């Protein structure tokens, strides 16, 4: 297709005219789309690619282009994950290409005043000018203090840098800045627990092939997200095969409707989980005792300092009841490890970790929990007993000729549990439920997204925590991370904290100030608990550049917009790490086959937009940093032999440091390094994907490779981290309440080695806010991905046929108390903000909770009037410290609210 300048000018003229009209970006009558039809030529092409309309993104697709017009997108039947299927989001992506609210060419602002409701006065500029401007600004920072360059990547539709130039931080590292902060982080802090207990990432997954009892707490198992890449199919398979699905949730979701719904008060998962642990230990006394003894650190003796008591060998000790003495944990003569009691080790009184663990749970009876979480005590007991009974403790199973323990029960959690001020503790505790029944990495049990040989045994015989759970060993003050990584070493990415600090870095004695902010595929305003805070933070940066697909909040506040392709137009690669809800689908061989490197053949762009990785390379080139980029790629290529890994490029594929390569060439060399000469770019263009590895079914279970490592039941690494960090923090002399939103003593409670209940700000809200507001996932609206809130098909169908869409859902009891009728416009107001929308009265809500489903609502009008008026859950939240979980940085995503008629 021929792109003519006329088309852009047309598009452009419309934009500035609209700007003059106060950002009501309406351009009726203007040819909003580049001319589609080439005179006389009929041409039909099918392009293989992959879908990225959700974060899971493991679906391959085939795009049909007819005379330059995309007329069809469907699943690629040749790929094992989605098998030719696509979900509604993946199907609807065609409309993204033709979204009139797109940024159609590079733009620069002419109005120096910035604000969400201030007309930026956009003027179209050439790519040359845009790139030069950006490169000059970045070079200035680079020459002065590169730490003042801030990079905000995101999850959004074209999460290119995450899968592209190095997982979100290659660019800032090349520039020399430690300051990258993924904008979605505060809503995505689901990794800490799985990093610590399973040493896996990003999530813990179930095993739908063998699981018979799935306890889903605050999480979906694939169906709620209608993932096409096998998870929806897998959950249905499991249910057909008799798996019991128990959903603990304030809302009866699609999954809860397929299984059994246990309504729970939002934000009270911690007491619920603690009570389950209590029942198992104190009432049932039934758990996988062999596993707890041999495969966890439970028998390790703990000294008065709360750490492992060590012997002469410096190894953790276990009390052997057979010989009445302490031995190294790996002493082959060890016969009967003590799990209870108190022993004398040298001058010290020591106890098995298990004792401490068990004692910590003593008071958490179902009755106690029931008052807090509203789940009846009897139901808690029933769930605990079903969970343990279903685990078939002692049973084994043969997979591919290998005998594994068979534990067909699992408890899974996700954002519904983690995104609370006590979410770290609740999430980790939920993992301990699994550890107790010994289901870790065995068929039917709990797994991590990364398959196969992953587990690294540390010198203490315990699995080395990965990623975000790695114990903290360094502290610098004043901090140099705007997101206060120094104070939150386990944070996922606390973007709202970063925004808060960027506004007044001097408050935390920071020596640097933000100078250049680059945003790519993220939106620090929209997903900030406090949009005003996000707006202020972005406006506080003298130069802001964003890669933008459409005129969203961050585009609105930018100085330069680098116009970005839509998903279908982005020829790019992705390192698909595997399914996040379930390892298996029920189809034999699935787990070991579905992980792949994906490639998308691009549909020619209709506007003057570009693929972002190429643009980044171009900027680095103009900054004179190409050699640094190439050096970085040479050392750590685009991916490694396993997901989330990297290897150096093979010698014969090494980049010449002074030559400029394209993004595709970099991938080409990476793939050839890993898979061999014939598996480069050409192969990918033709096939669309290449399997990351080929594991047999037994090999996909990590315990096949390592069935000796111990998992933490006693959270020693967490404690170790706290022991290092907390004194350092106190030394700064800062006041916890003022600088961190909580006292340092309260912070210390998050670093305990055993689970403990804590009261949080959520529970202490003023009484008038009598309800708990949550958000719930809709099939076509979550995570702010894929511009689904502007997609006309999605909007139209959901408004007509989905009663939950763009609504405020309340139980009839709430409706009656306030005399609401279905469809009334009501307001939900929290201590921090309010939103309004039409009420949907539904029995599927907990009577003390309301839900604002989907990721809707905008703070700008430049994406259409309709979009800006949608009901916005985030408006109810608070994005400042004190409402962020102090460990993983997750925002408290339950808000206490009151409701009334508008």
């Amino acid at each position: 297709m021929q792109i003519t300048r006329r088309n852009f000018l047309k598009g452009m003229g419309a934009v500035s005219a609209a700007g003059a009209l106060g950002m009501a970006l309406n351009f009726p009558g203007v040819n909003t789309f580049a001319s589609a039809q080439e005179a006389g030529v009929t041409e039909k092409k099918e392009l293989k690619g992959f879908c990225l309309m959700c974060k899971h993104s493991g679906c391959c697709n085939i795009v049909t282009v007819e005379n330059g017009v995309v007329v069809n997108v469907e699943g690629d039947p040749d790929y094992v994950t989605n098998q030719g299927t696509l979900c509604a989001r993946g199907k609807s992506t065609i409309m993204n290409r033709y979204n009139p609210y797109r940024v159609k060419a590079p733009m620069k602002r002419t109005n120096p005043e910035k604000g969400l409701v201030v007309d930026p006065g956009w003027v179209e500029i050439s790519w040359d000018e845009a790139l030069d401007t950006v490169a000059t600004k970045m070079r200035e920072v680079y020459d002065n203090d590169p730490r003042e360059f801030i990079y905000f990547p995101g999850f959004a539709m074209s999460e290119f840098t995450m899968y592209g130039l190095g997982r979100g931080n290659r660019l800032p590292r090349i520039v020399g800045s430690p300051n990258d902060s993924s904008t979605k982080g505060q809503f995505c802090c689901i990794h800490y627990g799985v990093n610590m207990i399973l040493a896996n990432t990003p999530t813990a997954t179930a095993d739908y092939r063998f699981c018979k009892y799935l306890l889903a707490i605050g999480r979906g198992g694939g169906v709620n997200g209608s993932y096409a890449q096998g998870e929806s199919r897998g959950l249905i398979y499991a249910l057909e095969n008799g798996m019991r699905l128990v959903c603990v949730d304030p809302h009866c979701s699609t999954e809860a409707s397929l299984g059994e719904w246990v309504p729970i008060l939002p934000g009270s998962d911690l007491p619920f989980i603690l009570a389950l642990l209590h029942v198992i230990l104190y009432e049932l006394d039934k758990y996988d005792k062999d596993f707890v003894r041999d495969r966890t650190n439970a028998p390790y003796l703990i000294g008065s300092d709360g750490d492992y008591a060590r012997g002469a060998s410096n190894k953790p000790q276990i009390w052997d009841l057979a010989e009445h003495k302490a031995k190294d944990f790996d002493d082959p003569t060890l016969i009967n490890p003590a799990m209870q009691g108190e022993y004398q080790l040298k001058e010290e009184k020591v106890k098995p970790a298990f004792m401490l663990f068990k004692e910590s749970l003593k008071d958490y009876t179902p009755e106690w929990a029931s008052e807090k979480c509203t789940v009846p005590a009897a139901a808690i007991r029933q769930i605990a007993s079903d969970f343990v009974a279903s685990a078939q403790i002692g049973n084994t199973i043969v997979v591919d000729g290998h005998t594994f323990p068979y534990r067909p029960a699992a408890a899974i959690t996700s954002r519904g549990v983690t995104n609370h001020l006590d979410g770290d503790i609740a999430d980790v505790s939920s993992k301990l439920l699994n550890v107790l029944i010994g289901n870790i990495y065995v068929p039917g049990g709990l797994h991590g997204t990364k398959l196969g040989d992953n587990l690294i045994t540390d010198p203490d015989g315990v699995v080395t925590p990965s990623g975000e759970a790695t114990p903290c060993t360094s502290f610098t003050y004043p901090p140099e991370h705007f997101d206060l990584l120094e104070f939150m070493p386990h944070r996922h990415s606390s973007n709202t904290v970063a925004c808060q600090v960027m506004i007044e870095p001097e408050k935390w004695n920071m020596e640097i100030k933000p100078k250049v902010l680059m945003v790519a595929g993220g939106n620090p305003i929209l997903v900030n608990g406090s949009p005003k805070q996000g707006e202020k933070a972005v406006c506080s940066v003298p130069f802001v550049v964003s890669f933008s697909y459409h005129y969203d909040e961050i585009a609105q506040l930018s100085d330069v917009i680098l116009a970005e392709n839509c998903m279908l137009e982005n020829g790019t690669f992705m390192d698909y790490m595997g399914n996040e809800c379930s390892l298996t689908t029920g189809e034999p061989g699935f787990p070991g086959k579905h992980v792949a490197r994906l490639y998308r053949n691009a549909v020619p762009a209709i506007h003057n937009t570009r693929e972002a990785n190429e643009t980044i390379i171009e900027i680095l080139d103009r900054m004179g940093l190409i050699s640094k980029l190439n050096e970085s790629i040479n050392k750590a290529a685009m991916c490694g032999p396993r997901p989330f890994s990297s290897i150096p490029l093979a010698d014969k594929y090494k980049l010449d440091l002074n030559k400029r390569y394209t993004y595709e060439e970099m991938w080409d060399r990476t793939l050839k390094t890993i898979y061999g000469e014939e598996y480069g770019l050409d192969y990918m263009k033709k096939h669309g994907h290449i399997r990351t590895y080929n594991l047999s079914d037994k090999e996909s279970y990590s315990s096949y490779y390592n069935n000796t490592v111990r998992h933490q039941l006693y959270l020693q690494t967490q404690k170790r981290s706290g022991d290092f960090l907390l004194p350092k923090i106190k030394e700064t002399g800062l006041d916890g309440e003022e600088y961190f939103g909580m006292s340092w003593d309260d912070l210390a409670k998050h670093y305990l080695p055993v689970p403990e209940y804590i009261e949080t700000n959520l529970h202490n809200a003023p009484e008038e806010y009598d309800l708990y507001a949550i958000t719930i996932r809709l099939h076509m609206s979550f995570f702010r991905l894929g511009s689904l809130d502007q997609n006309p098909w999605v909007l139209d169908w959901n408004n007509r046929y989905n009663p939950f869409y763009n609504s405020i859902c309340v139980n009839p009891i709430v409706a009656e108390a306030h005399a609401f009728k279905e469809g009334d416009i009501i307001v939900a107001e929290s201590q921090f903000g309010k939103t309004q929308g039409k009420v949907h009265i539904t029995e599927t809500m907990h009577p003390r909770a309301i839900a604002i489903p989907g990721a809707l609502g905008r703070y700008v009008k430049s994406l259409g009037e309709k979009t800006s008026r949608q009901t916005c859950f985030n408006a109810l939240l608070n994005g400042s410290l004190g409402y962020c979980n102090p460990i993983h940085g997750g925002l408290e995503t339950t808000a206490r609210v009151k409701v009334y008629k508008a």
Partner: protein
Amino acid sequence: MNTKKSGSKSSIINIVCLVLLAVGIFAWSRELAGNPGTTNLSEYAPWGLYIALFLFFEALCAGTLFIAALGSNNLPRLKMAVIGTVSGVCAGIAILPDLGSPLTVWRLLFAPNTSAPMILDVWFLGLTVVFGILLILGLSGNKEGLTRLSRIVLPIVTILLPLGTAWLFTTLPGKVGWSSSLEIGVFIAQAALAGLCVLFILQGIAKNVANITSKLVLAFLLINLALIIGEVGQALYSSGIEALPTKALLRGGFAPIFWCQVILGVIIPSILLAMNKSPLIAGVLSLLGVVITKYLFVVKGNIYPFLNIGESLVVPELGAGNEGYLMAPTYVPSGFEWLVGIGVFALGVLLINLLLPRVTNKQVGVINIIQDINQIGVN
């Protein structure tokens, strides 16, 4: 009576009618152009005002021509033949704006699917209008042969006409609001009532209301009332889904119209007739009753679009349900639909006004009828 004056009044009426007709045609053109919001018809209310008007004109045509054909010569047969025939034409015209592709309407006549009940309508209405015209020619030109022929054919086709339409509705599967066989009786009774009303009004204008006409109108009003009571009673005593549409008429969004129909269209005229007061008002009200009955009948079929699966269904576009079953939103014709509907009426009035003075020798147009009504009102 000043002929000149009434002549000029008549042409004023003609002009007004022409204007209304033009406005109607304009509104129709907007609809044909597919402008959003021009009609309130939807997939859940595919039929509305136009079909109601068709049913009304059809009833008027059938009833009036039946009487005109069979009546004795002391009745205003010619006037009735004109009014009946024009109504038939109006029925046909009322359908046109309902068609999405009116230019292909010839297919109804020349390439029909003969197993579709709608084709009965086409045939019977066509026959009725043709024989209506023959009757007019016969009566006005004193051509006995034509009159006699029509006298034989018209009573048959004017009965078949509403029957055919009734079958069209009652045989649609799963349309619980239409499927009751009772509706066949209602169609016939309505046609009879409409015809009698015309006669009654004409006699009233001529100030020679035959006692028997008045009694017959009253009788058919009461028959209609009985049918309504019958339907309501059956609905109230039944718990099935078939009863829901009628129940919805009693309480739902259409309730004001329903009660308007019962009170204004049936009870008040009955009382007036029983007390022998304001016969013309009673006649006009009864006719209005027929219009509303037809409208309610049309909408009734689509109140519960989902049938059984409508139970506990939630479709925000459609709003709330009744007794657990999802209902379609209340259909009210749009402004454009009203304009088109009024245009059809205007066409009818225009035709009558043009035809009557020509076929009868004296200057009897609608103008005279109105004048007469006024006089009676004054009296």
